[in-house]
């Protein structure tokens, strides 16, 4: 019996001695945050993670879903684009935006808010932690400048989408009692970040090809110009756009259609793109936006339908029309005859069309880049700012350079503009902007910036006898509602935008 008693105590002791091991489990296959910022490689990873929220561009299927849905807020909200999809209720948030019947829990705005703040935090994590890392000083400074560019980029989206927003400049908040900072403060921070980034970031040509997609000096300048344009500071806008145009870093791509195909991805016309790869092996490879906008008759989902009004906006014979939209029966760049499926407008977005020959490995969604800033945009914004500043000739030169490229050698179309009346020229520049970067996520915010969103949208609804746009209320719908959950969580400290 004694032996048994001993055995029992032995078992007991083993159990108790093992307890430390049993109760202390270090995470497996996961890194503890306390050791996440030590090496130069850690810095690179941190900066990379700050770029990642850019890649979120639709709800369901991106690697960084949900993302900021530029196609909804920039395109569908405007007179250029119908929602499309399976039925009216398919991607309801987009229909709500299209009808300006936008509840405060609208998904597109909810995800825009959360995604951009995730981006802000990732940039803040870099700015808070990378300075402590011992590494090459030049590279470290560039990383910090990239983070500033990204923070500015995210805040610019926030401010143009929501107006006043909380300004968070540290990665770890002590408390959650922030109020919304006035728009001008947010803009000032954006200007500060972009200005500091411009001072450090290399020119596009100084980056090796393997760094294509990183923030460049030119990108920071172009965005700073755009920010000034949104602030109606036309002098600064013209100056910065002019700097980009004259930098020698960027040139218009001779072939307009080619610009949006894989072959055009390396064109120097691009100033800032979100890079995707066609490599299915690692995320984020897929840019699903091309599937979102592809025909339902070809495995797409049939969203983002160009409207008849958009098609009508093109001047007769403008080649850009059929390089921007397509309809059933069109012969596509890969030789296939198009079928737009259930498109209610009869059109689909050709800028998102992926020809068969680009589908390496049969992938349905090749990694087509998302183009956000290109010289075509910069030149027309330059033209607008120059016209406002009285630099009519500068405006005309830039405008006509765009029309010349669009003409593609056909002398019978798109004649040079010679209008010198400021207001008339402004209208012509606006029209040119609408067609030159149609479906490129700018239209709605352009209309708001130009102070005519309500007028244009209601006119659209009346003209086509459609609910789309008819719900637009001036003084309300220029910005979108802050997510209701955010207001609830703040216990009312954050106030909703008027009218929502």
């Amino acid at each position, binding site marked *: 019996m004694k032996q*048994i008693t001993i055995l*029992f105590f032995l*078992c007991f002791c083993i*159990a*108790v001695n093992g307890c430390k091991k049993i*109760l*202390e*489990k270090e*995470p*497996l*296959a*996961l*890194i*503890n*945050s306390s050791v*996440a910022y030590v090496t130069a490689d850690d810095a*690179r*990873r*941190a900066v*990379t*993670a700050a770029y990642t929220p*850019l890649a979120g561009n639709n709800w369901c299927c991106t690697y*960084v879903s949900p993302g900021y849905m530029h196609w909804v807020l920039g395109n569908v909200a405007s007179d250029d684009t119908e929602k499309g999809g*399976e*039925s*009216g*209720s*398919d991607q309801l948030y987009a*229909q*709500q935006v299209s*009808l300006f019947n936008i*509840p*405060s829990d609208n998904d597109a705005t909810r995800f825009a*808010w959360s995604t951009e*703040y995730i981006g*802000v*935090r*990732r940039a803040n*994590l870099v700015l808070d932690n990378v300075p402590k890392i011992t590494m090459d000083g030049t590279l470290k400074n560039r990383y910090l400048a990239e983070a500033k560019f990204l923070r500015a980029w995210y805040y610019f989206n926030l401010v143009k989408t929501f107006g006043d927003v909380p300004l968070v400049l540290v*990665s770890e908040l002590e408390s*959650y009692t*922030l109020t919304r900072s006035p728009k001008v403060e947010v803009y000032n921070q954006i200007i500060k970040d972009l200005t500091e980034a411009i001072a450090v970031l290399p020119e596009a040509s100084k980056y090796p*090809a*393997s*760094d294509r997609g*990183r923030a460049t000096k030119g990108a920071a300048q172009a965005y700073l110009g755009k920010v000034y344009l949104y602030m109606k500071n036309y002098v600064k806008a013209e100056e910065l756009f002019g700097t980009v145009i004259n930098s020698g870093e960027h040139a218009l791509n001779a072939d307009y259609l080619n610009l949006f195909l894989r072959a055009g991805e390396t064109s120097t016309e691009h100033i800032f793109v979100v*890079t995707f790869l066609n490599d*299915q092996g690692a995320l*984020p490879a897929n840019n699903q936006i091309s599937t979102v906008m592809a025909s339902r008759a*070809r495995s*797409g989902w049939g969203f983002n339908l160009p409207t008849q009004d958009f098609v009508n906006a093109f001047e007769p014979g403008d080649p850009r029309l059929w390089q921007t939209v397509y309809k059933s029966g069109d012969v596509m760049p890969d030789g296939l005859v198009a079928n737009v499926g259930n498109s209610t407008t009869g059109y689909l977005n050709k800028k998102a069309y992926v020809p068969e020959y680009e589908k390496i*490995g*049969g*992938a349905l969604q090749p990694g087509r880049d998302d183009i956000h800033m290109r010289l075509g945009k910069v030149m027309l914004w330059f033209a607008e700012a120059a016209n406002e500043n009285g630099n009519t000739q500068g405006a005309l030169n830039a405008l006509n350079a765009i029309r010349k490229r669009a003409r593609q050698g056909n002398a019978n179309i798109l004649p040079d503009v010679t209008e010198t009346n400021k207001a008339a020229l402004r209208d012509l520049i606006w029209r040119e902007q609408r067609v030159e970067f149609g479906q490129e996520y700018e239209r709605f915010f352009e209309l708001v910036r130009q102070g005519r969103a309500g007028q244009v949208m209601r006119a659209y609804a009346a003209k086509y006898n459609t609910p789309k746009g*008819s719900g637009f209320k001036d003084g309300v719908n220029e910005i979108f509602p802050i*997510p209701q*959950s*955010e207001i609830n*969580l*703040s216990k009312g400290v954050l106030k909703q935008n008027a009218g929502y």
Partner: protein
Amino acid sequence: MRNCQLKKARVLSRFLLQVTLLQCLATCVLLASPGKFPPKVITGTVISKEDNQAIQSVNVLVKGTKVGAITDANGSYSLTVPDDNSILVFSFIGFSSQEMLVGKRNRIDVVLEQDVKSMEQVVLVGYGTQRRSDVTGAIGSVTAKDIQDEPGIQVAQALQGKIAGIQISQNSGAPGSGLLIRVRGTGTVNNAEPLYVIDGNLNSNPLDLAPDQIESIQVLKSASAAAIYGAQGANGVILITTKQGKSGKSQLDVNFTQGLQEIQRKFPVTNARQYATIYNEGLVNAGQQPLYPNPDALGEGTDWQKEVFRVAPMTDVSISASGGSESSKFYFSAGYVNQEGILRGSYFDRVNLRINSSHNITPAIRIGQNLSASVAKYKQLSEFSFGSTLGNTLTANPEIPVKTPDGAWGFSPTSLNSVNPLAAIFYSNDNTRRPVLNGNIYADLTILKGLVFRSQYNFNFGYSENSIFTPSYRISASNFNDIANLTENTNRFREYSWANTLTYQKAVGKHTFDVLGGVTIQESFFQSISAFGAGLPANATGNINLRYLDLSTQGNRVGGGAGEWGILSYLGRVNYNYNGKYFTTVNFRVDGSSRFGENNKYGYFPSFSVGWKISEESFLKDKSWVTNLMLRGGWGSLGNQNSLPNYAFATLVTPNINYAFGSEVVRGQAPTGKGNPDLKWEATKETNLGLDFRGFNDKITASVDYYYKQTSDMLLQVPLLQYSGIQQSPYVNGGNVVNKGLELMLGYENTAPTGFDYYVNANMAFNKNKVTQLSNTGTSIFQQLSFIGIMNVTQIGSPIASFYGWKTDGLFQDRAEVQKHATQSTGTSPGDIRFVDVNGDGVINARDQTIIGNPWPKFTYGLNGGVSYKGIDFKLQLQGTYGNDIYMALKFRMEGANFFNKTLNVWENRWTGPGTSNRVPRQSTNDPNNNMRSSEYYVEDGSYMRVRNVQLGYRLPRNLVKLRAARIYASVQNLLTFSKYPGFDPEIGTNRANNPLYIGIDETNYPLPRIYTIGINMGL
């Protein structure tokens, strides 16, 4: 019946053998008197009064000593007594003990009489056993007899409707599909699955266990009963005992059943002509051109359900052998079950082996083992979501032919979105193989009289290997896969637990003690590995030998993760009763878990319960109408550590937040969440009050239980303000849920001398579930479905996972009604749904969303009855739920206007003009009113009553077959279902194994089959 009881008694004896022995010892030691005569040998036999048959395993003990013997198969014994004054005590489970003074005799034969009171079951209570009638907590029991011959892959299928207070729903009818099991309601928004303990082995997966290896099941319902399982017991504990060998002649049993399964009912959908008419209507109402010039020309089209459903076989065969001697016992079983799915292309099969044995090495040492090996294989088809195989079946355009005249898969050139479901099944290869080994070894050491040490080491290990092969194919321009690809997923798990317990039993006068103390450790580890490759050879489509990653040419990628946790526990229990009248049980368990945060490493879980056996009081003791009347009550505290992720206490870096630069993917990483070092278990405290009755010649049994169960410190991911940029909300202990309910059980059993026996058992359980606190006031937990959006909410004051959306008030009949009503949407027209302006602000918006349905039943019930006469037996089981709603999510596609096939409801009841309908809205492909938003339109009554099993058996007379037992039977499972639910099947569990908040949502669930079975049991 008598034989049966005797057999049962023998089975039970092995649980109680030692207990009784020790109790006797303890009692007798005090009464011993010293002897004066020389020792002598006494022999004799023990027979049963009822049938004059010898009884084996009777304890024969010299009173007041440790000297004893056990009768052999002939009922004979032999032992040496110290003197003539010795008293022999003959005891055997199920029989009244007898005492005999030795006197001058050398041979003492004894006739034992059955004792009705002690015939009661002995039940497992966790790390020990107790007499059923002495249990003061709430326990539900099922024996092998209650579940035998029911077709099923998993044991819980057979438990449906048999125990009050356990809600069981099959998640789907897919072979091998999981089940939703809730003991006394849902106490948490997190993991609410009960703990399975198979032969003392925690966490073994019931999917790997063959139901016919089970001897008995106890469900520890109340906290006072389950408290011995501490931080793992909050969701209830299901204790399963597998069969063990008995000493005596070896037995061989063979069971064979063959079933045929069919779909219970088809879902009524439109045919091609109706479909085309409705779609045209939707287009025209949206201001577009109709697509089909002449719908009538399309005729009936394809009946896709007829194409994908089939009559499918189900086979279950098992062979078992058992037996042993007094010192060694064995049970061996091998079985094979195969269930083909009623949906083409799905199946489940499993091979099970079990060896259980035990050996008495010396009277003080017993060792044993239970070992189970199983290999399950199954092929799954996607279900539950839009675009799943079954979803595609219902929504497929009936205009599409199964095949084109040239033999290729059919498609529609005008409706390229619609998938050919048969082709999808043909190209779907999602196969899983799951070999698992589990079991335990144990040793019981009787250290001193009444003091037993037990050490039991349990293990579970195995893996599941899943292979998904998608061949290259091209059905249409929108339905193709050009590059064959292969995904291989392996999940390995290994787990062990080691329990060391010490029990001491002692009776002093009228006081009886049973004390347990122990230490247990448990550790669990899993690892997942996945690999993907594309570009497999084209002929891999038809040749499974080519489906290996070595043959992939592109797109290779790999992934893998791991996790582990451990628990260290101290446990203790005292059972005490005074004079068999007053009972009390006190449990205490301390659990330390690696999942708990640094600041809360140990949890303490006490419980107690008391019982008053009123039937033992003098005023009832001699009343013939009552055998047992016990009033019991208790309180207990439990935890649920399973809700905690392994490492939620730490702030971790999310790896692979990648981005592409140039033509390379660059690795990124960032912390995306926030750890919480204060994390601890979810705590449940429950008060239970119950009454058990047995009487009227034991014909009637009844019990009532009331409970009030409160979960606090519920684990929540409390959302932070999103401007923090923290994506994964940190886990916080901060929610309360209350479940209260009433459980009723009533049974009647009659054994007539004519041989006409019958029984009826009814049970019913009411439960009310309410969330009483969520830590961050003003927040609720919302769940959404793709397309539909937010459709369920967990909020204070309502049941967990209540359906959420807009209330509806019929349809607008004309424009005046639209204008008179609160503003809904730009474009709202007659024929659209009129949503209720709940807050009366004149606008229908997010603020008008409210709770529109409850997925939890008001009560669940079961009724089991049987009749037997001579060799014929008949069994009937009913089971149902009442008062629960189903969210019929499939309506989004099947009743909203789009190019998918419609329910017949749309064809028959849609609005086509003023006064035509007030139920189904007009069809409009642009649906500006957003009729298909989450609303009461989706909510249907989910109550049902089901005839679960009808069985007719015949026991062949022994003179006809030279077998110990031979029985043939026929049964029908799911014969009839009474329900108002318009879908396939009202039995809906959860669709997402990892999110218990998706409850009662029909996203095209695989319907449960009706199964016709014939079977034979043979015993040698």
